[in-house]
């Protein structure tokens, strides 16, 4: 077991799946010799050859077309879309084609594609490099959407995603790439694609978050603990489907909940979670469902990110309000 960054954990997972299955292929812009603009695929072309790890021309729709066509000829593609903002160029490929294809064949053909893409605010990138665009994809039947919040889950989830015969959108958080280290086993292990995880146990209030906001929620929980408010923190890990069982079990214990996301508030993952809770658990709640989300503006210019992205203080304030309701 070694201490590993989030990005190294993903590289380690990719190394594992390339080693395990000769039909896996990694491709995208700059993923070959350069090892990706963030070095996520570094060393993999040297180890597995240009036949398995290769650069594409600069066109995202073409990359998705490759992934679908390679699936049709028996391959297991792992395309990279260099930044999630660029998925708009591949929207037909992901949503219009890939997600529907298993259904369109009546289950006769599989499209085991894992699309890796970095996203998330807080690193002062250029425009269209940080947006949280998961809302577009979690409303797409046929597509799974997962996003790890720590190195251990990053490796386990990327392996599960690649081994899944369903198409998976694997969202990698830019800010987490090198900002945290974890004990990550060298050997192969998997993290299930459709399960949330209780990352801190508590009894007074449930904080539901995902990706970088999990760390913010954990910091908020520390602050709340000083005032004897015991917060339970859940990391969704999977955004489609959402593991409501884990959330409901927690609410049965705490009877209060705050749902947190970095994305804008409108029509987001938090809204889905809140509506699921309202539909099934409203009689178990002692307070309204709290929500923490970014405001409904376009993603801010980099200098103002800090004022826009929800942080531990925002979560703490909302949690106090709900806890004291």
């Amino acid at each position, binding site marked *: 077991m070694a201490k590993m960054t989030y990005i190294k954990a993903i590289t380690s997972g990719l190394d594992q799946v390339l080693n395990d299955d000769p039909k896996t292929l990694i491709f995208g812009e700059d993923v070959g010799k350069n090892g990706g603009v963030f070095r996520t695929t570094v060393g993999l072309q040297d180890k597995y050859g240009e036949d398995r790890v290769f650069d594409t021309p600069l066109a995202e729709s073409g990359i998705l077309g490759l992934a679908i066509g390679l699936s*049709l000829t028996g391959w297991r593609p792992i395309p990279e879309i260099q930044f999630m903002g660029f998925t708009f160029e591949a929207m037909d490929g992901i949503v219009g084609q890939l997600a529907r294809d298993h259904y369109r064949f*009546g289950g006769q053909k599989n499209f085991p594609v894992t699309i890796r893409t970095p996203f998330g605010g807080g690193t002062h990138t250029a425009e269209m490099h940080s947006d949280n665009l998961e809302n577009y994809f979690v409303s797409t039947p046929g597509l799974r959407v997962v996003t790890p919040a720590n190195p251990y889950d990053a490796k386990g989830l990327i392996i599960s995603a690649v081994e899944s015969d369903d198409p998976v959108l694997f969202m990698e958080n830019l800010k987490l790439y090198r900002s945290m280290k974890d004990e990550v086993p060298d050997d192969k292990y998997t993290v299930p694609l459709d399960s949330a995880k209780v990352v801190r146990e508590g009894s007074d209030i449930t904080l539901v978050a995902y990706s970088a906001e999990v760390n913010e929620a954990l910091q908020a929980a520390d602050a709340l603990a000083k005032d004897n408010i015991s917060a339970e923190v859940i990391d969704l890990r999977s955004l489609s489907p959402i593991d409501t069982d884990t959330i409901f079990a927690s609410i049965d214990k705490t009877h209060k909940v705050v749902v947190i996301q970095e994305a804008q508030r409108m029509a987001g993952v938090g809204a889905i979670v809140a509506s699921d809770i309202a539909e099934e658990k409203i009689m178990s709640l002692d307070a309204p469902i709290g929500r923490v989300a970014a405001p409904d503006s376009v993603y801010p210019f980099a200098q103002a990110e800090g004022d826009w992205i929800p942080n531990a203080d925002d979560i703490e304030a909302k949690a106090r309000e709900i806890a004291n309701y």
Partner: protein
Amino acid sequence: MANGSKQFVDFAKIKATMADPYKHPVQVIDREGKVVNPDILAEYSDDQLVDFMKKMVWERTLHEQTMNFSRQGRLGFYAPTAGEEASEMGSVTAFKEQDFLLPAYRDLPQMIQHGASVAKGFLWSKGHIEGNQYDNPNMIFPQIIIGAQYVETAGVALGIQKNGDKDRVAFVYTGDGGTSQGDWYEGINFTSAYQAPAVFFVQNNGWAISVPRRKQTAAETLAQKAVAMGVPSVQVDGMDIVAVHEVAKEAREFAAAGNGPVVIETLTYRYGAHSSAGDDPSRYRTKEEEKPWFDADPLIRMRKVLTDKKLWSQDQEDKLVEEYKDEFKNAMKEAEAAPAQKVSDFLKWTYNVPTPAVKKQIAEFEAKESK
């Protein structure tokens, strides 16, 4: 232009000459039925030529019968194919069963030739899942999003290359309007970058619903667009089945030998409406425009060549038409006997491993369906 005198780059000349290599579409039989390339024609046996004619009569009859079924309300979306018989039958017959076909919605006749049944074609039009499932696995259902089949072709061709399959290519169709899509360029360019085996067809039938070919691009030909991607291309008389077949066959050989992709523009015409769903060509084109194309009909010219060779008679053709009509009526009966579709099945096919919410919905619909 420096000071209005010396010219460093002569853009006007470049513009005026860039289509030169494409100015003369290749042809074997001209519109009067005259053989203009006897050497190529001589490569084809009498049986092959008769088979070409039979296939065109088959496609024309399929079209007419399909229009009848449409009027009777027995079909859903259907894109008429009359006029495009030489382009469609001439091309598809140049490919082998192991080649991978990526069709668009006007390509049902090629799909049927490639191993989907007529009944499957009807089921696709009617909106039934069995219309997407074929005995030949080397085929995908008709693409609706224009251009998507082109980028997917790049993946299929690369997959064929990586699998080390010899004597196997991907082939794909779109229309003249399709060449304006970004995916059209991306698909051809990716395939070219990897030198993967594919043949890209552009059936230029003059119209993208109501928008004429000249409004899609200022390029004089669509074939010349391939040059920018480093891909050889040709413009062929799409009403001449022998010419279409010959270029398709040679393109397939070129691509299968590892030389990268080829683009083929067939010059053809859509006699009827864009689709069976209410399009009326009289809103956007004239009888005067249509007439020369109707006169260039691919069946008329092949009929003349075969009649001159004493290989064909009207009597023979009339009998064939009746046989084909019976075939299509039986196929419609087969299509109409397909089992009713179930929402629970749709839910089961959405994911390989159903999500908890989908599992619950499957149970709900199965309960309803068993009542």
